């Protein structure tokens, strides 16, 4: 997987690509926590995520909790139906700020 970080209008955008699972979670967790540590809102593009498992959810949850402590936000956007299903199974779809697309994520408070 190849992940990408860009900055737009004062917000960091992280694009996750491929399988967000236990095999790759160390890299993904590092990327997310590093993004949150910059003190800016972190927008996570899930459009290229092909698979999400419990460890991927755990990494995202850790980033949300760290952002909350820092007074910033983590917003997720463009999750496909398969990825959304995993959030629903975790019963955390209301814990995460999930948006249909980047514009909605940027325009909406966490």
């Amino acid at each position, binding site marked *: 997987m190849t992940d990408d970080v860009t900055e737009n209008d004062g917000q960091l955008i992280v694009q996750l690509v491929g*399988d967000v*699972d*236990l*095999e790759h979670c160390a890299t993904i967790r590092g990327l997310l926590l590093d993004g949150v540590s910059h003190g800016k809102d972190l927008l996570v593009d899930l459009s290229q995520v092909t*698979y999400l*498992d*419990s*460890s991927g*959810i*755990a*990494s995202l*949850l*850790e980033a949300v*909790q760290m952002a909350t402590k820092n007074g910033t936000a983590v917003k997720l956007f463009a999750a496909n*139906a*398969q990825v959304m*299903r*995993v959030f629903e*199974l*975790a*019963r*955390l779809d209301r*814990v995460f700020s999930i948006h249909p697309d980047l514009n909605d994520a940027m325009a909406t408070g966490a």
Partner: protein
Amino acid sequence: MTSIGAKEACPLSEPLELMLEQRFGAVLAGLKVVRGSVLATALHCGFEDAEARDVALAVDEACKNIIVHAYRGESAGDIVLSIYRSRSGIVLYLRDFAPAVDPAQIGPRALDDLRPGKLGTHFIRAIMDSVEYLPPPDGRGNLLQLVKILE
């Protein structure tokens, strides 16, 4: 190939037909292929795409529990996956050859617990209709039985 031989403990009463038996190393890098096998088999057995993907996720999480909690991340062991179908659903067995684990140690988290972790077991129990640890045929390792009923 090691036969599971535990069909008599299955909660589905109809005759079972073996659809897939696959032995693989207990390493994370191999699980994508396993997910593909489970997805294809579940689809072939009549599950809709979303349900078949759920079953593949449950098996994936169960395999990760074996790798992390039974083999403790060491790549010395194997996992045997067997999938049977009946008229009303499918039965999956995951056999490993690691020291016996206490299922209570890998139980699901409380639903109001927002700490990261322990979600995998919650996924397995949310997706499957029955999740049960059985005595392995020769007393060695662990044997997990997962059942999914066709809606």
